[in-house]
Structure formats: C-alpha cells, structure tokens
C-alpha cells in the first residue's frame, strides 16, 4: 500500500492513497465521479472524457480526466465546479446525439450506466436535429454474442478486456472518427472463452448475449450471491432469476478469486435448469423401460435392497455436490454399515496429489507475489479458465512463467520457457532431470515459486511430477496448487472419509461387486476413458440408484433414477475451491417437479431404515462440515460465511482424504485432453452453449498430418467398429507425431487410446453419398 497523503476535493481535505488514480481515490472517500471507459480492472485510457475534473496547476485550473491523473500530495481538485458540470453535460450530450433511443427494447435499460448518468449529469433535452448514425442492427460476432454498433459509445472496455485480460484480441476498433466501430476481423468470430465478460462490462446495451437477450427487465430480477461450481476455481457469482426461473449469472468482483471475471461456461452453463427434459419424477426400470414411481414406493423398495446388504452399498459420486451433501453421504454410509466405506469420484485425472505436510499449499494471490510460476498440469485455459486469467495477470505484472508439457500452449507467448516434446515424451514422462534444465533452475533456485501441478492426461504416471515437485520443494520457496479441476472436488476430499478414483473402482468392483450402487450426479460412461470397463461392471450390478438431473449414458443402466436439485441455484451449502477457500452456494429458484436435494433423499431413506434423521438438515450438516474442518480458527458455518468481512470466503483446513491406489496402466498412443466445452449432460441441455461443445475434431501439426498421408479436413475415425466422422485440424502447437483427441466430445472416450485408431480422409464422393 502507498503512503496516505492529503488532498483537497471540493474544499474538503481528505486522505488519499499516494499515486492512486484520482477517480479511485475520490471513490474511496465517497465522492463519485461519473465514468464510462474507466474500469477498475482495466488500464485507463481516458477516452470517454466523462470523468473530467478541475485541478489546480501552476498555470491555473485545468480540466483533466480523473482516470489518468494520479494523486499527488496537496492536490486541489474540484469535481463539481461549473466548468466541470458543463464539460460532463457536454460529453453526455455528445454521447447521446448518436445513441439510439431504443431503451424500451434494450436489455441494458434499467441497469444502464448511460441512462443512469444521463439522469444524474446529463442535459434534459436534445438539441440534435440531424439523423443519427446508422449501422446494421445487431450483428452476431460469435455464436453467443451480438453487437449493436448503434448503441456503442466506443469506451473500449470490451476491446481492452480482450487484449489485456483474456489475451485473445478478436475485437478491435475499425474505421476512424465518427465512423469508428467495434468489430471482429474478417472470418474470425469473437470466439473467446471469456466473451461474456464484455457483455457484463459494456456500459450500454451494445453487447448482448443470446442467452439473456430479451429475457427480462433488470427491475424484475431477484438476485443472490453464490459460488460457481463449474470448476475448482469457485468464482463468486450473482445469480439473477425472475418468476422462479434462472436467467443470468454475473461475475462478482472477489479480489482474491475471480476479480469480477467469469468464463463463458460458468456464465451460461445454467440454462439446463429450465430445460424441459429435466427429471421431475422418480423412475423405476420395468422391463427395460423407465416408469414413474412415487418417492414413497421408491424408498420402500430401496429399504429392502439395503437391509441385509449394508456392507455391499457403494457410492460413485460426481463433483457437483455441496460440502454438506458430501458430509451427508459420509454420515449415511457410516450409519448403515459398520465398516468404513470408500467413495469413488468420477474424475479421470484424480490421483493423490501433493498435500504432504512439508509442501505449502498456495492461494491465487501467491501467483501475484511469486518470482516464478511453474505449470505442469492439464490445460488450465480449458479446465480452470479464471486461474488462467490470474496467471496472465501475474505474468503481465512481471512474474516469470515456466511451462512443462504440451498443454497450456495458449500461454506459450507469455512464458519465458515452454518445455514441450524436447524434454517430455508422449506419455508425459520427463526425458531430462529437472535439475538439468538450466532456465528452470535459474528461475526457481532460492526464489518464491508458485506451482500449478496435476496430471496432464488420464494416462500420465505421476513419477515425473514427483520429480518436479520434490525438485521445486527442495530448491525454492514453493507454494503449490493441486490442479484438480472438477467442481467441488476439494469439498469431497475434505468431507468424505476416503476418496478413490475410477481405476480403483474397476479393481475393487472386479473383486467384490456391490449389491447397491448409488451414482450421484456422475456420468462416467459418458466421460471417462475407462468407459468400456465401467460399462461392463455396471451391467453386472443388481441395483443401481442414480440421483441426477437428467437421463444420460450412465443412468440409462440404472434401476432407479431420482430427480435431484441442482447445485446451481437450487441448494444452499458451501463449496471448497482449489485454494481450500470455502464460500457459500445459495438458492434462488425452486427445483422442478418432485426433485429433492441429496440430504432430503438420504434423510427419508434413513428414516425408513429406522435410523435417527434430524441431523441431515442442511444447517445441521453445515455445522458438521464446520466441525469436521480442521482449521479451528475460522469455522466455515453459514453465519460466518454470510458476514461481509468474509466476502472473499474463508480459507479452511488443508487436509484431504484421497486414497487412490491404482492408476490407468495403459500407455496412450494419443495425446488426449479435456476442452472447456464438451458433451456433458448439463451443457448439452444449455441451449446457447450446447453447440460450442458439439463439434467433433482432432488435431495434429502439419508434418504429422503429412507423415500419416492425411489432409486437414473431414475425416473418419475408426476403431473396433466405432466409426465417427470428425474434422482434422492443423495445430502447430501439438508435438510431432501426436494426434490430439478432446475426450469430452461425444463418444470419443469410447476409443481405446492404447490401441491404434484408424483415421482416413473423407472424399467428396463420400460426403455426397452420406447426404
């Protein structure tokens, strides 16, 4: 923090942070200066001229933009003088002369900075009698974003965001003067993972999303703060609903976590909530078909299955439950059987990680203070998008970045070293000892290092990761983030007594098949590379109970399906992120039909089994979670988390219960990874982004494609009778000889990547005959 100095604003002396921007310093003291282009998280440009104020200079009073003027000792500022008022009114009039008066049909109306500031600072009447500037009304600049250039006031917030923050400057100013407009480059849509942020920060209704367009008026919205459970970053969000329907998610500026930003998946992957195909009734499979069953009958039937088989009840859990629900399963399991039960988590990238006592675990803020960031993990832009932004931000502020592995090539441009196929083989094993990498050595020895470490592929053996982590831990002041990326994984690690992965499930179940298997919010058949093995195991189990939102590939095999509340907006609970930061998940919409929350269902089941049930209320469970939590100082109770002082969340105890013993033993012949958008059941049912995850493609560099005697373009992928048409795309960041498969695209996991997959180009005749 800078020293505080005295400045005089409007005749009143205030204390201000030396060197801070005047507009921010005034805001700190409760003096609001109107603005359009200035945004706390973007570099100032001084373009809109709305924040002009008068300051005393040796040559008299001067009008200066307060967003580019810094506080200096004894600065005298007037934010309300006649000259300032006239200038601000003038700027507003200039902005309005070409701004269309379509507020009645504009999504922004009601929460529009241009409207609001016109009321507060603008002229009452229009003196402009000419025709306004015209552009084609909204043009699509991507699948999910529309741009209305008539409404645009050219504040450059969106273009700066894309350039400075997300690093994909796909929108720019074109033309000049009065003809200036924001637009994309020819044939290059605004396909950014972060494009929704530009809609949120647009100070007018120029940028709108297909998702929210014409859906509601801001004054009709209910709002609550919550936590995104899309990945382990745990962004703070605001949920907006109207008439019991979720309509919008906004990023909230949590200084420690997402700093206001969201990825587009986190922002738009809620539309499934309102999807007609959501489960609303419990189902029982009768003669290979699902039939509706009342919850009461279902509980009775399950009671009989569980009684006498208590030790043969197992749990396969997804990563989208709240801490309280993980605690509920833990309690449930302990109550029905005497032996300790294992919980299997549906994530191919799970392993024991690096949580040993001698390794200090990092927070995101460590990235900003580190000398060097070292990344060896799955692609963080695809799987932990806001962490990607935080890394970019840290590097922009001077931190060194070193990347290992062929993932994360989108950070290549800003990395000082990118160790790819020269030192890491196709199965992500180091070919060179870390201490022999000179640049790595120079950048870490004796330095503050923050490392992001995790498996780059489901097939990666952790041996090389061990080498790197112990090298870093011995030679630097290391803080480490275990890059498990799925949902509330860290909540599961904390609140379940023992967590195992899918390889363990296969081994354990082959030895000892469970009688009853609960599958909760998980679709391993649709998402795991072990899908074939898992299918054959599940087919053998007598009773599978699936608790979920939709029917998908896994619970098609279930005997009973129970509709559940969604963690997005239909539950109250807590979430633990990758930093072990706990924050609140809140409810704003009711669930459809007879959907239950997990603890309600388990309570009912327990009471039918004759066990005491009171403690499975959410609040009781929350107390349990807080007690279980190892950090005794900050209890993560709802009451504590709701306190404004804990807005950033509470870092809880950093102990985990992961007990993986088995790994995928196969060696992959291919390079596989997960993309942000994929074929998950929730995304498939979210209208605006479903298309983004539906395209099937594989990638390789040009020389690989040539070596394989292929051409970029349409192709067939074929193995053991599974033939899919796909696209083969050139990507020069992929090492020689490797073909990349995004495994979360539909049916790709059904291939056995340890065996050869045939790829052949589709000829034109084939295309014609297919059609």
């Amino acid at each position: 923090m800078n020293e505080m100095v005295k400045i005089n604003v409007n005749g009143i002396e205030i204390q201000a942070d030396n060197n801070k921007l005047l507009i921010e310093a005034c805001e700190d003291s409760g003096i609001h200066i109107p603005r359009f282009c200035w945004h706390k998280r973007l570099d100032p440009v001084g373009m809109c001229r709305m924040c002009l104020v008068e300051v005393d200079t040796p040559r008299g009073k001067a009008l200066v933009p307060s967003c580019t003027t810094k506080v200096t000792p004894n600065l005298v500022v007037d934010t309300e003088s006649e000259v300032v008022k006239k200038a601000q009114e003038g700027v507003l009039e200039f902005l309005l002369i070409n701004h269309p008066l379509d507020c009645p049909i504009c999504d922004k109306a009601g929460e529009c900075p241009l409207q609001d500031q016109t009321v507060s600072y603008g002229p009452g009447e229009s003196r402009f009698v000419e025709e306004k500037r015209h552009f084609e009304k909204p043009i699509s600049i991507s699948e999910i974003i529309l741009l209305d250039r008539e409404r645009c006031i050219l504040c450059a917030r969106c273009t700066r965001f894309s350039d400075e923050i997300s690093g994909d400057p796909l929108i720019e100013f074109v033309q000049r003067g009065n003809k200036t407009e924001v637009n994309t480059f020819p044939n290059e849509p605004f396909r950014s993972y972060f494009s929704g942020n530009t809609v949120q920060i647009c100070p007018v209704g120029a940028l709108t999303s297909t998702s929210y367009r014409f859906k509601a008026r801001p004054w009709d919205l209910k709002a609550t703060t919550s936590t995104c459970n899309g990945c382990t970053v745990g962004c703070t969000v605001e949920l907006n609903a109207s008439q019991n329907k979720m309509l919008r998610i906004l990023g909230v500026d949590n200084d420690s976590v997402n700093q206001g930003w969201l990825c587009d998946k986190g922002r738009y992957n809620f539309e499934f909530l309102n999807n007609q195909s959501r489960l609303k009734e419990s189902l029982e499979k009768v003669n290979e078909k699902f039939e509706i069953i009342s919850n009461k009958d279902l509980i009775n039937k399950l009671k009989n299955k569980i009684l006498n088989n208590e030790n043969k009840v197992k749990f396969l859990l997804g990563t989208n439950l709240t801490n309280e629900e993980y605690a509920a399963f833990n309690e449930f399991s302990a109550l029905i059987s005497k032996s300790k039960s294992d919980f299997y988590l549906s994530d191919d990238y799970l392993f024991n990680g690096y949580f040993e006592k001698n390794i200090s675990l990092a927070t995101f803020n460590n990235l900003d203070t580190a000398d060097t960031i070292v990344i060896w993990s799955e692609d963080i832009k695809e799987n932990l998008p806001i962490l990607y932004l935080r890394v970019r931000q840290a590097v922009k502020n001077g931190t060194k970045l070193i990347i290992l592995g062929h993932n994360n090539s989108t950070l290549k441009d800003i990395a000082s070293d990118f160790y790819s196929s020269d030192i890491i083989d196709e199965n992500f094993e180091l070919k060179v000892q870390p201490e022999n990498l000179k640049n790595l050595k120079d950048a870490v020895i004796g330095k503050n290092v923050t490392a992001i470490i995790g498996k780059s592929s489901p097939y990666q053996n952790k041996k090389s990761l061990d080498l790197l982590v112990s090298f870093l831990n011995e030679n630097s002041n290391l803080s480490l983030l275990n890059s498990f990326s799925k949902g509330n994984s860290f909540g599961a690690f904390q609140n379940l007594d023992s967590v195992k992965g899918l390889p363990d499930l296969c081994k354990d179940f082959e030895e000892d098949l469970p009688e009853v298997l609960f599958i909760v919010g998980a679709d391993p058949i649709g998402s795991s590379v072990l899908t074939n093995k898992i299918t054959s195991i599940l087919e053998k189990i007598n009773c599978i109970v699936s608790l979920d939102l939709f029917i998908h590939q896994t619970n098609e095999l279930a005997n009973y399906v129970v509709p559940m509340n969604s963690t997005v907006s239909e539950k109250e609970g807590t979430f633990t992120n990758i930093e072990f930061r706990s924050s609140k998940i809140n409810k704003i919409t009711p669930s459809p039909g007879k959907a239950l929350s997990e603890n309600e269902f388990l309570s009912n089941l327990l009471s039918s089994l004759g066990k005491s049930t009171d403690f499975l209320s959410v609040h009781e469970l929350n107390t349990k979670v807080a007690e279980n939590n190892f950090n005794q100082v900050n209890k993560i109770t709802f009451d504590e988390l709701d306190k404004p002082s804990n807005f950033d969340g509470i870092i809880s105890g950093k102990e985990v219960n992961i007990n993986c013993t088995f790994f995928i033993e196969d060696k992959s012949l291919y390079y596989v990874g997960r993309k942000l958008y994929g074929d998950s059941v929730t995304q498939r049912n979210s209208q605006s982004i479903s298309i983004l995850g539906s395209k099937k493609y594989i990638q390789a560099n040009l020389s690989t494609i040539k070596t394989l005697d292929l051409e970029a373009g349409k192709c067939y992928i074929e193995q053991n009778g599974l033939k899919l048409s796909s696209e083969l795309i050139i990507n020069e960041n992929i090492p020689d000889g490797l073909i990349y498969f995004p495994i979360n695209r539909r049916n790709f996991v059904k291939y056995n990547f340890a065996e050869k997959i045939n790829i052949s180009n589709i000829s034109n005749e084939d295309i014609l005959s297919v059609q």
Partner: protein
Amino acid sequence: MKETVLLTKRMRDFPSDSHLIDIYEKSNGYKVAKKTLSKSSPEEVLKEIQDSNIKGRGGAGFPTGTKWGMLVEDKEKYLVINADESEPGTFKDRILLERDPHQLIEGMIITCFAANIDKAFIYIRGEYAKPARRVQNAVEQAYSKGYLGKKIFGTNMNLDIVVHLGAGAYICGEETALLNSLEGRRGEPRLKPPFYPAVKGLYMKPTLVNNVETISSVPWIVENTGAEYNKLGVEGSTGTRIFSLSGHINKPGNYEIEMGSSFGEFVETLGEGVRNNKKIKAFIPGGASAPWLTGEQLEIKMTIDDVAKNNSMLGSGAVVMMDEDTNLVNAAKSIVSFFAHESCGQCTPCREGTTWLEMILDRVASGRGRSSDLELLLDVCDNISPGLSWPPKMTTICPLGPSAVSPITSLMKNFREEVENMIPTKVLL
C-alpha cells in the same frame, strides 16, 4: 521585401536535379556532416543549435535546442522526422523532401551525432508518393556512399535510416499518434503524461521528434554557427522560415523569408497582390488550426510572438488569404469538415462534436439554418474547448478537436452578421 535563401538555395541553383547526390555533393553537400563527425563534439553541436534559438517548424514552435537537451539518456534512443505534412495550406516540407532530400539526411546525421542516436525514421504522409520515392532513393544513395550504415565517413558513428509511409491520416502528424502509427498501432494520440517523447517516445524509449524543415536547417546552422543564424529574423523568431502562401493572391507558392515583416507586405510584394485587386476579408496566418485574422490585421508582423499576441498562431507557416468575395461560412464549413473527417475517434468530444459542428454548418451554409444555431454552434464549441479562449483549453486528448473550433469562433467573433444573414427569416403564413 526579398527572400533570404538558406534551405531552398540548392533547388533554385539546380531546378531539375537538386535531389541527386552528385549535385548535392558538388554544392558543398555532406561536408558539414563529415567535418562535424570528425572534428566536433556532440556538446558543441548542441550548443550551436541552442545559440541559434531556432524553434520547431512543425507548428508548435518549441525551441529545438531545449527539446534536444531534454532527451533522456538510454541505451536505445531514436530520431523521428515528422514528414506527415498534413495541415491544410502547408506544402513547404514537400519541396524540401522532394527537391533536397540529402539536406535532410545530412541534418539527420548531425542531429544523431549530437544526440548519440543510431536509428532514425522518416515518417512521410502516404499521399506524398513522389517525395517519399525521392527520399527513399536519397537514403539508398547515402548508404551506397557510406554516409549511412556502419562507421559513416570512416568514423565510429553508425546510423540507420528507415523511411516509413503513413496511410492517410492527418492525426499522425501529432507526434504521439505518429509514434503509435510507426509502431504499427492505430494512429491515435497517446495520453499525457508522459508529456515528452524525449522521455518516453517510440517503443517507450527516448525519442527526438523533429520537423523536416527544422532538421534541414541544421547543416546551415552548424556550418555557419548558431550565432549567425540568430542574427537572422527577429528575437523570438530567428532564422528564415518557408511560408506556404495560398488563397486569393496572384502568386501563391513557397517563400523562404526572414521572420519579421508584415503579412500585408508579404502578400503585396512576394505574393504580388490580391487576385483581381480585391481586398482581403480574412486570412489564416498559420494553417487550418489557427484562428483567423481579419483584413484589418494585415499589418501584424509575421513572428511567432506577434501572431500569438493577436490570439492566433504562426503554426506551420501556411498563410491562406481570403478576399472580400469569400463566403466565410462555406470556408469555415470546409475546414470543420476536414477536421471531422480526420478526427481519430478516440475521445468523445472530438469524435462526436466535430461531426455535429459540420452538420450544423452544412445546414446554415445551405440555407436551412435556424436562429438557435448560432448559439448552438458556440455552445458545442465550448464543450470541446471550454471558454473558447486562445491558446485553447480542451476537453479532448489532443488539440485536434479545438482546431475545428478555431474557424467557428473566428467567424462568430468577427463576421457574425454574415452568418446571421444566412439564416432564413421565418415568414408566418
């Protein structure tokens, strides 16, 4: 009144081939640079420039010696020649580029020697195709003779010159917009601070940005000493200056004169009088950005200070005469249209305000004006340049917006009746 020919001597002596290196060398060319590099010190050169009291010829009139003295020490420094001559009415750099490019190059060599710079750029406006070709050829000739490149004239000095063409934007004459354009960005003025490119300029490195005419004067000053140069002209406006005279006069053109005589004398003698013996109604003393002076003010002396005292500026040295038949509303409209067309669009008051002013003037000029338009014009101007004072205050990032205001305030101050007469009287039927 006679011309004093320092910079334009060679092109007069050799009207058809003064741009060739052979001619240049034959007429004393590159000797000053050669001598300076081997015999003088950078400090001595700087002192000559400071002694000459030459002020920048681009328009702002900043003392060149002071600018050079402000250059911050750094490993990388640059010299950028601003040859983006775009101020309407100005065509003096054009002849220097087209007809005596080696004089500029020699000036650059001496400047870079004085400032210890080894990389220089000449940013020429895109429309100057022929001058750019001539300069490019001249640079190549100089390289082939060993006057540019490594170890020039056999000394330890290295200098590379890059000729860069603009893409047709007036705003790139503003030095920070020029630097942005040269870096490959949009030609938009940079935010101040940093105030001076001499501190943070091209690629955020210390950079001297000088006008063509300024640097073309350097060889003469160094050869004949700054004290000699200082004797020319008058105090505050020393040396000679090339004025571009245009408008309703009998002999428009470029004239190199010592500053100090009056506009009236200039027009009557060198300009050979007003066309058709008419009277001058108004004139622009220093480029389209400068407020107009009236026919009664022709006795004002052509010096930086005298014009400034009369609330205008000598600017880029473009003198445009308008006779008594001129429709001044149309004249103002055409200047405002120019600025509206050339606004970069970065800041609101200039982007929106200049176009609005153009629209209002267009309405008035075509007989569709409203009686409220006069006050509206002045108020819109006031929102771009608060107080409508000179030198202008501004709500904008750079002075382009206020430049569009100058002709309107001049018009309204001195010729308001003429504007009022163009507003149709409302007849009640």
